[in-house]
């Protein structure tokens, strides 16, 4: 019978303070079981890969025996289908394990921040569409719906993957985090902060939009973003000079995350491409769409032991960064934005 090694979380960064106790009470007790499941699933995955390879090769061989020379197109399509099944079977097995493992570990990790997590769920398209900053897409997928109160502000976070499916294939249009935040300043209209795409595209975008373009005083802000609103006065009420400074400070902060010499931070969280950050004030809330190159909130994988704890550190760091958004934008203070 496999005995679990004694596992303790060593706090290394300031934002990890207190997590060692939380880890001991909430995460460590289930780690042994999760690791046993991982090993069993890994063995199953290897078996599936072998079977898929053998099955795929056999299938292609039989297809080559069946057909006549003038049936090459049909043979090609059939061969493609066999390869697709052979490849997708192990991928499906891998994906199912990741979903199951996240369901076990992630809620216990995020509860450290008094947040709840539903890994298989995400913020609905119906909730986000009115904000007006979702790129055009016909495929909406998401996961890791985290919600609660962080730094005194009601928050919902989801990882989103939006794509355009056409006849020629699937084109990703957005991969990243959608962060929905409570705003303490009352407002009634809609104000969009979109990324600056150059004079021509901005002009075309302004013509196509039903909102008025808002020209703000800060030239650095104007270089990074284009603002549209239903109300010129309300847009300036929300985007005070102080808030514009804070949004730019956030952009700079996130860019510097990638330059940190610690490999962990470079590897894990520099993917926030903040020049492409977009924001929308709608219905009393602020939505931030932050593109990311990597998958977020992944507390482990099929091929790495859960006892490594590196992935858990990554999740803590990601949530710490989102907390920094609230801190930098001062959304937790009642002075307003």
């Amino acid at each position: 019978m496999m005995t679990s090694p004694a596992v303790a979380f060593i706090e290394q960064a300031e934002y990890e303070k207190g997590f060692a106790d939380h880890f001991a009470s909430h995460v460590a007790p289930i780690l042994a079981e999760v690791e046993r499941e991982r090993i069993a699933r890994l063995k199953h995955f290897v078996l599936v890969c072998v079977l898929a390879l053998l099955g795929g090769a056999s299938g292609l061989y039989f297809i080559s025996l069946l057909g006549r020379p003038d049936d090459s197109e049909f043979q090609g399509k059939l061969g493609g289908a066999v390869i697709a099944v052979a490849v997708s079977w192990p991928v499906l097995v891998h994906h199912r394990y990741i979903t199951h493992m996240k369901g076990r570990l992630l809620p216990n990790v995020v509860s450290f921040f008094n947040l709840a997590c539903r890994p298989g769920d995400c913020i609905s398209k119906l909730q986000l569409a009115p904000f007006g900053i979702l790129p055009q897409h016909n495929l909406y997928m998401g996961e890791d719906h985290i919600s609660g109160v962080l730094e005194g502000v009601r928050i919902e976070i989801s990882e989103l993957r939006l794509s355009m499916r056409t006849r020629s294939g699937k084109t990703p249009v957005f991969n990243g985090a959608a962060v929905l935040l409570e705003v303490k300043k009352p407002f009634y209209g809609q104000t969009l902060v979109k990324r600056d795409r150059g004079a021509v595209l901005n002009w075309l975008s302004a013509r196509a939009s039903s909102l008025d373009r808002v020209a703000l005083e800060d030239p650095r802000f104007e270089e990074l973003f284009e603002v549209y609103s239903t109300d010129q006065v309300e847009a300036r009420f929300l985007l005070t000079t102080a808030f514009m400074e804070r949004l730019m400070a956030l952009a700079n902060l996130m860019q510097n995350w990638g330059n940190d010499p610690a490999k962990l931070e470079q590897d894990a969280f520099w993917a926030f491409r903040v020049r492409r950050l977009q924001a929308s004030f709608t219905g009393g809330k602020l939505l931030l769409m932050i593109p990311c190159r990597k998958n977020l909130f992944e507390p482990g994988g099929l091929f790495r032991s859960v006892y490594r704890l590196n992935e858990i550190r990554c999740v803590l760091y990601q949530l710490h960064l989102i907390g920094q958004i609230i801190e930098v934008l001062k959304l937790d203070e009642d002075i307003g934005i």
Partner: protein
Amino acid sequence: MEWLLIPLLVLAAGYIWYATIISRRNQVLESLGGIDVQLNKRHDLIPNILTIARRFMEHERELLQSITELRGKAQAGIGSKDSAAVEEHLKMETELQARMERFFALAEGYPQLKSDSTMLQAQRTYNEVEEHIAAARRFYNAAVASLNNAIQIFPGGLFASFAGVSTYPFYEAPAGAKAPISAADYLQTQHDDEPRRSVH
């Protein structure tokens, strides 16, 4: 017929410049309207605040009276379109704002007034209205900058005088707001025997 092309282009450019000046002038008027909406809200709030304050601030009758009179004068200027009248109106509103700031500073010295729930609510609402006024002024300044650029860059002045449009003044902070604040002035008043503070 090619000789017509250049005069036509000049005419077209002239018309576009003229139309730009008119549309920017209209945006300035729109922004003035936006400020007036917020100023009306402030004017509606002031009597409520003064009514609550009168119960507690009997010694400040002079200030309360001056605020009431200034509010009446400033309210008459709402809706001005002429640039000279707008400048005068903005000055009066700035003076009214300064008097209200002095009023709130003095109110700090009246503990009963400070803790009155209706006064607290009125003050929160007033602060929100002031933030909206600041936002409306920023919109006004942006619109004025755009209009003044179109007029002052040659040959904009020619089209502007033809259209009867003149430049508008920017909203500027009053001189008092730009003066450096000395903490010693405020700290000195804490040693007074009188329960209320005088703030100049």
